[in-house]
């Protein structure tokens, strides 16, 4: 095993992390040492389990030797994928047209391959008359110039036609729904500017079925690329630019998207959920996003909110209506209602929430969320996870 380099170690990032002096994400600190800290009895999770039944990674096995502690492959915790991410399973007209183009290309290219192989077979051991017919410049001129020119021109014309057909004409007065998606290492900020200031979420893109949507994509750090294969091809998110893509979901469903431009250590775990739903359900969801979160209903929830503040979570995260407004990390206003955590890393439930807070660096090493297993007592961890899960 190697040490994990650069954990949270980009100067910019560590400057904004709370508990900088004590917490694990320090540049160049070996994995072993960090997890050893995380699992130390003073701040570890008693019993190694958090409510919800999920083991907090790296936590709770304080009696074991450090070497065996970090040997648990954290990726075993990864959520199994739900929601399609296939270009062959289109949920919208754009992806459907591209899929058709793909099938045509497969057919044509398959036929050309068969033709070339067939001619090669004839050239090798075919009947003498056929071979004689092939053995001349005419073969080169016909097969090597005339045929590809014609075939490619036809394909190109068709391809350009499909390209144009991907931007659907708008009815008079129809405005597409604008959604801003900002790629960040390694998560997605999603904003609905048409719905006002507060309509912000993260790592989840909800859109109404049947309505034209225009994605305005940009980046907060490095180049990312947003890809929802069931809806459309990908479009890059480039610092200093805003790229736009029009798409439409035609069927409700849960889809998956992922970053496709290599963006650093955790490029692999930068996915998001896409939920296409009926317009009414979508509007209801959007309205709920805008609203301030309710006051904690129970003392336990109140304690969770208090821990959230004391632990400094608000230095990076926003929760609407609380005064925590930072944009450095995902907006948590309705995090309890999201399908996954950690940009598609874990299926969302209370146990996963506690596990993520305790061991984000073990689940997704190198992301900018510190592991709080040591900083938070077990009860506090449970409380803050409970409060966040209540934000629905």
């Amino acid at each position, binding site marked *: 095993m190697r040490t994990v380099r650069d954990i949270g170690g980009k100067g910019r990032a560590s400057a904004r992390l709370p508990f900088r002096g004590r917490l694990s994400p320090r540049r160049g600190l070996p994995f072993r040492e960090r997890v050893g800290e995380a699992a130390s009895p003073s701040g570890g999770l008693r019993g190694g389990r958090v409510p919800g039944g999920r083991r907090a990674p790296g936590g709770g096995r304080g009696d074991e030797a450090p070497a065996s502690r970090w040997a648990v492959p954290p990726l075993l915790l990864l959520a199994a994928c739900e929601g399609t*991410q296939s270009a062959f399973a289109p949920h919208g007209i754009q992806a459907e047209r591209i899929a058709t*183009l793909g099938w045509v290309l497969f057919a044509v290219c398959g036929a*050309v*391959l068969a033709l070339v192989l067939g001619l090669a077979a004839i050239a090798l051991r075919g009947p003498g008359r056929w071979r004689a017919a092939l053995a001349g410049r005419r073969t080169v001129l016909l097969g090597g110039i005339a045929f590809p020119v014609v075939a490619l021109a036809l394909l190109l014309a068709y391809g350009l036609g499909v390209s144009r057909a991907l931007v659907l004409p708008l009815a008079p007065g129809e405005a597409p729904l604008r959604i801003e998606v900002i790629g960040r290492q390694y998560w997605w900020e999603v904003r609905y500017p048409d719905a006002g200031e507060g309509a912000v979420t993260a790592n989840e893109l909800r859109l109404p079925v049947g309505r034209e949507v225009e994605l305005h994509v940009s980046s907060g750090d490095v180049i990312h690329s947003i890809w929802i294969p069931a809806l459309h091809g990908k479009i890059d998110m480039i610092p200093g630019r805003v790229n736009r893509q029009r798409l439409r979901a035609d069927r409700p469903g849960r889809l998956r998207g992922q970053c496709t431009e290599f963006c650093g250590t955790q490029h692999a775990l930068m996915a998001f959920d896409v939920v296409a739903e009926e317009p009414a359900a979508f509007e209801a969801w959007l309205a709920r996003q805008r609203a301030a979160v309710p006051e904690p209903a129970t003392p336990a929830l109140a304690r969770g909110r208090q821990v959230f503040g004391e632990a400094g979570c608000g230095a990076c995260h926003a929760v609407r209506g609380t005064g925590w407004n930072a944009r450095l990390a995902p907006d948590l206003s309705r995090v309890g209602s999201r399908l996954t955590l950690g940009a598609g890393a874990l299926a969302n439930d209370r146990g996963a929430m506690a596990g993520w807070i305790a061991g984000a660096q073990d689940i997704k090493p190198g992301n900018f969320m510190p592991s709080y297993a040591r900083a938070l007592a077990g009860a506090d961890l449970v409380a803050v996870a409970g409060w966040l899960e209540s934000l629905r």
Partner: protein
Amino acid sequence: MSSASTDAAGFPRPGAAAPATAAGHAARTGIADTPNPLPRPPGEAEALARAWAFPRGWRVLSEVNNTLIGPLFLGTALLFFLLAGVLGLLIRLQLVVPGNALLDAATYNQVFTMHGTVMMFLFAVPAVEAVGIILMPSMLGTRELPFPRLGAYAYYAYAVGGLVFFGSLFLGAAPDGGWFMYPPLTSREHSPGINTDMYLLGIGFIEISAIAGAIELTVGILCNRAPGMTLGRIPIFAWAMLVFAVMVLVAFPAVIVASLLLELERALGWPFFRPEAGGDPLLWQHLFWFFGHPEVYIIFLPAAGMVSMMVPAMARTPLVGHGLVVVALVGTAFLSFGLWVHHMYATGIPALSLSFFAAAGSAVAIPSGLQIFAWIATLAAGRLRLNEVPSLFVLGFLFIFTLGGLTGVMVAMTPFDWQAHDTYFIVAHLHYVLIGGMVFPLLGGLYYWAPTMGGRLSDRLGRWAFWLLFLGTNLAFFPMHLSGLIGMPRRIYTYPAGMGLELPNLLSTLGALCFGAGAAVVLADFVLHYRPSRAGGSPWGAGTLEWLPGGNWGLRSIPRIASRYPLWDRPALAEEVETGGHYLPGTATGRRESLVTSPTEAEPQYVGIVAGPGWAHVVAALATAAHFLLLTGSLYIPSLAAGVLAVAAMLWWLWHGTDHGPIVGRIAIGGGIVLPDYLSGPRNTSWWAMVVLMLADASVFACLAGTYLFLWLVNAAGLWPPPGLVPPWAGWAALSGLGWLGAAGVLWAARPGPGRRGGPWPHRAALLAALALLAGALCLDLWAQWRAGVRPDAHAYGATVFALLAWQGFHVATAALMLLYTVARSLVGRIDGVRRVTYDNTALFCGYTAAQGVAGAALLHGFPVLL
């Protein structure tokens, strides 16, 4: 149509060829008999062997001959193929199941970055370059390439630099931003470690080595051929290498510029790629892919050239459509430079531009298709010996490359590419193209040409290797077409279960292991059967000159050739050549000589002296490598010392090893032809080398000028130059322009030549005056910009201005060194009316510097005025 019959000696006799009698030969070639009478005087062959003998023992490291450096070069490239292949296997083992924890994310990112980088820069390009260095002299019928010392320098720099670069992986210091290194991920802010510097400096310097090799090959192919080998008779592989070399000269500068700019941003804060200071991350992508797309064809074309040699030989019939294939090679080169946006379809480029690039991307399929049909027609005309290992690799190539080419047509279609881009579909496509288009021909070529350099390899092991590699390739990469389109992006260290990716990934890993086994069989075959010698004979009955017997000196005597397959015309040629019946059968000066011929008609021009063993180039190569690697570690003082040592070693090698002047005066090479042993001006090979170097130089300048214009386009009106900045008064540019032109003018006016009066002082004065004028013009340009308040670290405008000026400054510094060197040569009496190659080259370089200075001033001063 040709028959497949062979004559008594086992040589094929194509139907089109006249009977192989002396009279028939004379009728076709105009040579009545061998130009040098037989038998040859005793001792002639021994003297030749003495002149070309290798130093003994460990001193052999000072040898520069292509028969030693070529195989070493190829062996090193194949070593990197194995090393990067092991990294590929690691990638496949990590991805064999979802959520695997064999490699952690950070290590995985280094591994995939190094796999791509090493395969592209340390294996593919050097490997084809090495095959060129091995085969070119014998295939062209010359003793040696014109600059063997430069070739050896390129080799040592590459070998040492490459091994250290690879070693960075074991220190965790290997690059981890992908072989494409996109900023801002690779900026100081997001990648603060030295990993990125390792790439920028390490690879940048290995590219310089590639350019050195390309200069050597270009000039060699143009100026060192057997008499009578006109452009129309050059073997296809030599054409392919010529196109390869020119493409390297034009394309590699783009990535060198990109690396330099990024390193300047990282080290000094010049904001080329930072949008908040007028830069643009897309600038990198344009520069990188302007190199990166031609790179694919740089790798593929020589391999296609190998196929065009193997198919006729293994089918025993001339290549059908020879001229068309040459046109296809050249056409591919041109088209490939119009394709770079192919890699940037998803960056938000306007639809109209995308249509243009989609058309260009489709068009480039035509020359490849043309070659495929030329091979098919040739196969039909002859009869391929199916059981031979080279034939198997050719057929495997045909299948894999055609499939890869067709998926290339698919991704040329913009909307399809939006789905396929940066997914495993592309991984499948590029491996089909590169393994099919490069590795298979290369391995086939190894089995095919091994007899010319070290005995035949095992047929049995070769067949095993072929089938393992062929099945492995298809099993590993075919399922990736599927895994990509069902949602697997590239460069991910893990993927979730439940997306349907488990089976395709398992198959891919099995296929990769199968491929690895095939590579191991090839390695075993080499270890068991490869012994450097020329004892392998000519087992395939091929028609081209590399199958003539010879030694370190290439051919004992150099024949005049009259067709594309001289050995098929004249089966006695081998014996005539070996007994010394043809041109230049010995050594006239006692030194290593080669015949220099004219570029188009290949008429003999003069007998050139080529370099023998020495240490200066070894020291220079090691010091160059040390300079760049120390720079990576920010050890500036040792790095500077190494750089000075490198330059000193080069000056030593130039002083003692070049521009020797006339030695014996005139040499009779046979057949009544008497040639000088020294010529200056455009017939001299080093004049050609300087011109070819200027092509690479101009490409760098064009990339920098392109950077300026691109950033102007990106910045909205009124922001270039940024508000508040008034460009300097144009009069300063006019003044510096006078300086640039004056420097070139005095060097031209005072050039030495026969019958010029005044002795050596006019040209010495001119050299010093040119030095003063160049330095003055540069200072004026720098001062004018600085005075106007332009600063390199404030805005991309200033950064670009100073990048152009820095490039010009580098030229002035080099010119200064050359001018002083030339003055020194003159002071010791080594420059006169006849012996003036050094002066010519210095003047040529200063003339280029002047032209670049004027062009730069016109851009920097004229453009803001036009706006």
